């Protein structure tokens, strides 16, 4: 089970994502932004961080990296892709996912242990969870407010593509408390919170995040 983790200049959580893949039992494969080659991996994680300093808009410059050309094609062909935080922003900028992520309504970067409800388990990355399951994973972002027009939001809800929702507190002003969404096929998932930081009892608030990484391995074994 080979899961690629892309490193862009300014990626920060790439080691953590790779560690999470390993803890879940997979093999993490380092992918480089300038390399237009996915090295035959079975799935890809776009990790958190500040690609290119997030200077223009989060994810705006990374979207044009050579590796993304290949990734967009592969994702359209069904390759499972998980974008976490900055990765989610890159997926939106690449139009693999609808909508966009804007500055937190608090105007502050926020790092907190966030309670979420898993809303959909029919994606490649959430099959290990139960619908309605509540989990706590770290959240850390400055531009994590999910926005899309009402029609898009309605469609996401209607098609069961809201993957996770914030509970107790909406930390960034996301529309309809959305923490993560999927594409129509369910192979591409974008998530603002960081499941890769909740995979070890020692370093995470919980180990609730592991399910994202076991889901993909389970799915790949079954496929």
């Amino acid at each position: 089970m080979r899961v690629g983790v892309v490193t862009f200049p300014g990626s920060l959580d790439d080691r953590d994502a790779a560690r999470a893949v390993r803890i879940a039992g997979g093999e993490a494969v380092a992918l480089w932004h300038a390399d237009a080659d996915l090295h035959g991996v079975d799935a890809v994680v776009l990790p958190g961080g500040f690609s290119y300093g997030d200077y223009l808009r989060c994810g705006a410059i990374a979207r044009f990296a050579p590796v993304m050309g290949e990734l967009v094609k592969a994702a359209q062909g069904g390759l499972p892709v998980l974008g976490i935080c900055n990765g989610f922003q890159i997926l939106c900028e690449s139009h693999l996912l609808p909508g966009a992520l804007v500055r937190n309504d608090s105007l502050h970067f926020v790092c907190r242990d966030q309670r979420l409800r898993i809303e959909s388990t029919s994606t490649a990355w959430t099959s290990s969870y139960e619908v309605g399951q509540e989990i706590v994973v770290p959240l850390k972002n400055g531009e994590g407010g999910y926005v899309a027009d009402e029609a898009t939001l309605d469609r996401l809800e209607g098609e069961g593509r809201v993957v996770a929702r914030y509970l107790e507190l909406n930390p960034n002003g996301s529309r309809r408390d959305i923490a993560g969404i999927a594409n129509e096929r369910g192979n591409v998932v974008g998530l603002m919170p960081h499941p890769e930081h909740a995979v070890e009892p020692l370093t995470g608030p919980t180990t609730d995040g592991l399910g994202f990484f076991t889901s993909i391995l389970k799915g790949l074994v079954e496929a």
Partner: protein
Amino acid sequence: MSTAPRKSRDTVDDAIAHPEREQPYAELGLKANEYERIKEILGRRPTSGELAMYSVMWSEHCSYKSSKVHLRQFGDKKPETDKLLVGIGENAGVVDIGQGWAVTFKVESHNHPSYVEPYQGAATGIGGIVRDIISMGARPVAVMDPLRFGAADHPDTRRVLPGVVAGIGGYGNCLGLPNIGGEVVFDPCYQGNPLVNALCLGTLRHEDIHLASAKGVGNLVVLYGAKTGGDGIGGASILASETFEDGGPAKRPAVQVGDPFMEKLLIECTLEVLHAGLVEGIQDLGAAGISCATSELASNGDGGMHVVLDKVPLRDHTLTPEEILMSESQERMAAVVTPANIDAFLDVCRKWDVDAAIIGEVTGTGRLVIEWQGEVIVDVPPRTVAHDGPVYERPIERPDWQDALIADAPSSLKRPASAEEVRATVLQLVGSPNLASKTWVTSQYDRYVLGNTVLAQPEDAGVVRVDEGSGLGVAISTDCNGRFAKLDPYNGAKLALAEAYRNVAATGAEPLAVTNCLNFGSPEDPAVMWQFSEAVRGLADACLELGTPVTGGNVSFYNQTGDVAIHPTPVVGVLGVIDDVEKRTAMALGREGDVVLVLGETRDEFAGSEWAHVVHGHLGGIPPEVDLAAERWLAQVLVAGSRSGLLSAAHDVSDAGIAQALVEMSLRGGVGATVTVPDGTDPFVLLLSESTARAVVTVSPSDVAALESLAGQHGVPVTRLGVVGAPGADLVVENVYGGTASWTLDELRATADATLPALFG
């Protein structure tokens, strides 16, 4: 932008030909005798470029001219240790933590820039200390930020604090370094002089240590990272405009703007070239920029260097050579590379999109020669710039007000005398700015990135895992109570060390080494110099007694407004080692029924306390007694208790005493405790005194005897206070002047959480 580079009007030949030319040395901060010394060293007047270099390198900030004679004590009184792989004098000290691993850590100040421009000042403070750590060959793995601000409700604090916090977060988060701790202290004495200290921790294998030296004649000097612009060179502008240029250049910004993304690339690029063995010597560019990097590299190596200044990549082509020498543009590094490795080195830079330029080479001449447009503008013995700056024995005088301050003991202050008054007093303290929850600040910092953060704020110390295989880790805490230091700088410095040491031990780590950032007023004031000399003496003595060597640090003088100095604030950072981070002790109360105990002795000590400060606005008397032997024994109990799994929670006792410790442990765990003041003990003293060498711990009922025996072996007194309640239980103190004081967790949390958001949005 395409204007031709400015010519220097002052070459070495000019200096010889026109010895009479007047030079603005005073405007550059040099004293007449210092200027004379430069002339003596060179045997002629300096060129404008040389004057630029000497003036920045001989500044207080770079030369430590007022502090040097005192700082020697850290070496002279260094405890016996084989843990110090690199000691004071390098960019940062390196400490052996076992299993082939080493760590380097250092704290530095960015006080003044953060007052002028809070966001960028604080951001570049993080940037600078991180480059110090990478220049040792270490990977930065965590940062901390000890901060001091003026009164919490002062309008200017509302300008400074949010900017500083956003800057530290903005830079550190973008670099991918977890923020694992720090301090937020308010006191009116910092109103015009906030303190922004930044600490960085790095890890490395023993074989990866690198030093700043330029060895090997013919080796190349590479400048890499950001392009050089006109940042932070107010002084050089004076030099250029008032004397050597008609009309003068545009005003240069005194403020530096950071680019954390570039710094992140610089980290990855630097570690890659170091690990590939492509580097002979390396140096970060901080204060004094190229002047500092070239003179230090040269004087630590074979002693000679030839630099072609035209090769420096510029962001602003109007810069004069003097300005290029002094520029403090951020995110730059210098490396010494053999000709054989240069292509590989430049390839790595290209890979990371980092600009690099060969600006010179190592020579055997013993001189640092810098040319500009084909002419020599600097020709100096590098040691005289980098190391042989002036050294002052500044006058020292114990201030005349010190005795009155000490005489004004807190004994006559009105104390609470009923359970209800104790209850109200504790609540008042819980919500006071210095004790209130700092979540408003720390939630702006990423504490998870890198996946090795085991403990972070609000725990006693930050703990990070160094080796994922073995669980080897380190703990760090920084502390300083400036009020204690004001009352008694000698013991105040000892108390700062004692508190940081205790915090590290509370997590189960064994304290090993020390860094410090000495924040003081003007060294030209004999009273300040007395405070400084006392604090250094106290810290050196205490380090010797505790067996923890000083590995490095930083001095920040001139933190004063008019002739009023800040409280002496010797911030002390202690680093400890923990063999297996799984064993660390956290502060949260947990299991219902666990027994709550206090280790150490409580005395009636309120001078400089949080209670006197908050309730009475009082500062006077003699600070709590320092008993370093007791600190040491306490630490041994805490470390042994952690290793053996005896302790289910531990928290050091400091500001606002046992009451505040219990409140913090309860809030962290979501469960209170019911404790009883022992008969014959004054409840107020037990709850709020700030006696040192104490910790609150919990153990399971069946382990009480084992703990008592462990403490007994080390001569640490144990007092049984009570038991942990059921989840959500109130915090209850019985036998308080015949009554009971209790607090619900909700009211404690609401009180603690409300303060900073109400002040800062």
